[in-house]
């Protein structure tokens, strides 16, 4: 088993081809519906597009991982089953799943195709991971972004499957697959509809003083002064007030993006098989830059050379970056 597999995002067929050409080993993507956790307008693949994408990737020795990582609400299970059946017909290399009913269906109907456990399943202990391996034959777990490297090493020693970790991109804070914040404000669910801060309910309002308010549904999730850069329009990235912080504060996290480029060798040494880059909603420009930079870094590490870390640090485009929980427990 080689380590350092680069798993890259694709929100459109063009982004998938860009990622493959930039050196991605695997690309993850989803259909244009609620079966995946990035069900955003104008994004994702029709069955025909996915079929073509799989052919494009396979011709260049890259793999396509189909995200079926939302939770079907009772009464709508058929949509997820159809997506799984389509995945087989289109010959995807693996499914990324979270719901146990979906996992069971695929394990029973396509026992030879790989199952990856999505971060949306929030399996953060060897016990939880071993449960999914034992019951559904999961081959890989995508770990939540909450563990330190020594903790990852300990988990690896106890589980009979591969580990994939996020190394770059948006920094998730809530336990994935357990967040109903968007649904509370908007009526659309991250778990059931694959939607987080749906764009049609995000509103930016500028007042006369030049302040920019971000609203999600009826709630103001942040307000920015004229010189401040705006934040990501999600509830967990907003600023709020209470008695302890009357002036307003980032109750959950500062605006910050995850960049583990410096930790790549340590992660490989800890037994991480695959590195995941976040951002199916980001542009081709982002995919191209980030994938190419990490491709070079991973190849350098494999060849025993020191990776060029400065290039990777520049990728966050002036935004603050963090190594989050991977570096220290103090993050918690």
């Amino acid at each position: 088993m080689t380590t350092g597999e680069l798993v890259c995002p694709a929100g459109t067929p063009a982004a998938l081809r860009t990622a493959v050409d930039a050196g991605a080993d695997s690309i993850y993507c989803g259909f244009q519906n609620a079966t995946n956790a990035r069900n955003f307008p104008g994004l994702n693949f029709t069955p025909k597009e996915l079929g073509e994408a799989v052919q494009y990737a396979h011709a260049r020795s890259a793999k396509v991982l189909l995200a079926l990582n939302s939770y079907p609400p009772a009464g709508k299970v058929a949509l997820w089953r159809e997506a799984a059946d389509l995945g087989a017909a289109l010959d995807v290399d693996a499914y990324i799943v979270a719901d146990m009913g979906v996992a069971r269906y695929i394990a029973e109907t396509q026992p030879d195709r790989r199952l990856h456990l999505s971060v949306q399943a929030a399996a953060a202990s060897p016990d939880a991971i071993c449960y999914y391996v034992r019951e559904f034959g999961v081959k890989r777990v995508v770990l939540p972004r909450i563990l330190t490297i020594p903790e990852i090493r300990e988990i690896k020693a106890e589980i009979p499957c591969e580990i994939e970790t996020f190394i770059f991109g948006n920094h998730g804070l809530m336990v994935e697959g357990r967040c109903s914040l968007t649904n509370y404000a908007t009526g659309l669910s991250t778990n059931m509809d694959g939607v987080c801060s749906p764009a049609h309910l995000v509103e930016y309002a500028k007042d006369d003083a030049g302040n920019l308010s971000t609203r999600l549904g009826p709630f103001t999730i942040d307000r920015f002064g004229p010189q401040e850069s705006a934040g990501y329009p999600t509830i967990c990235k907003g600023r709020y007030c209470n008695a302890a912080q009357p002036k307003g504060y980032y109750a959950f996290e500062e605006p910050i993006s995850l960049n583990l480029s410096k930790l790549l060798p340590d992660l490989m040494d800890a037994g991480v098989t695959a590195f995941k880059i976040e951002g199916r909603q980001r542009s081709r420009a982002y995919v191209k830059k980030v994938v190419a930079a990490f491709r070079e870094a991973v190849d350098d590490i494999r060849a025993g050379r020191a990776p060029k870390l400065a290039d990777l640090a520049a990728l966050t485009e002036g935004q603050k970056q963090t190594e989050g929980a991977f570096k220290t427990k103090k993050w918690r």
Partner: protein
Amino acid sequence: MQPRLTLGPIQYFWNADAKQDFYARIADEAPVDTVYLGEVICSKRQPFFDDRIAEMAERLTRAGKRVVHSGLAEVMLKRERKASRDMAMQDELEFEVNNAAGLFHLAEGQPHRVGPYMNVYNEETLAWMVTKGATHVTVPPELPGSSVAVMAEAATRLGVGLEVQVFGRACLATSARCYHARAYGRTKDNCQFVCEEHPDGMELNTRQGEAFLRVNGIQTLSHSYVNLVAEIPAMAAMGVTDLRLMPQSVDMVAVARIFDDLRAGRVGAEEASAALDAMDLAAPFSNGFWHGEAGHRRIAVKAAALV
């Protein structure tokens, strides 16, 4: 069939004596059938009450209540893994699993309950859980009534219980990070149990001063109290077997009595709804999730009858 009333686990960090007094009053006065005991949110809080669980369980059982031990929602550290394993290994108390780590340690077919953190959103996952020994499942608070109806039908067919939260703040998110500690410039490991200062959660208001969320350690809750009293006739007709009241810093005995009067048919939904409104609680009520709308909303009772 008349649904049972349950009292969910105390989510907040109340001190041990306050919890003991609370459960003593529940035992004596609250018309609930089942009481869930145990720390669900934070393993750091467990030592403060764990040694009293057996005594409380005995007290409640004597009062005719069924007692269920609730497990942790988040399992990552050694002590949390051990707590999950120990729960599966004991046979004194019926228990509710809230993390897949707990499922791993169950013997083949060992009876257990499945809690709202386990994400049972559909009839397939429900059926899977039942093949592994689940006897009772509580659905996530955001699951709409249209899906609960499908689940209730499956649960009836499979002969297991199906529970829905009908009162109290909705859990909206959990995290590895403690937001209570963060608000006070501390980390989770050095929190000094600041969450104890907010027995009904720490407020998070928008920058325009509107009440929005509540923080309880690693958990984020709705500011509003879920109130599905008007929807209970529909739930009973669907086959929902258990109605869960989540403990808040309000007169929970009074709340339980209102729900009890309704399920027993002594009052109608409108009257029960008016009685809850008359309690004049500090937070507004919401029922949006049940109606497939934004969770914070309160949809008029008349619309509820259409579900």
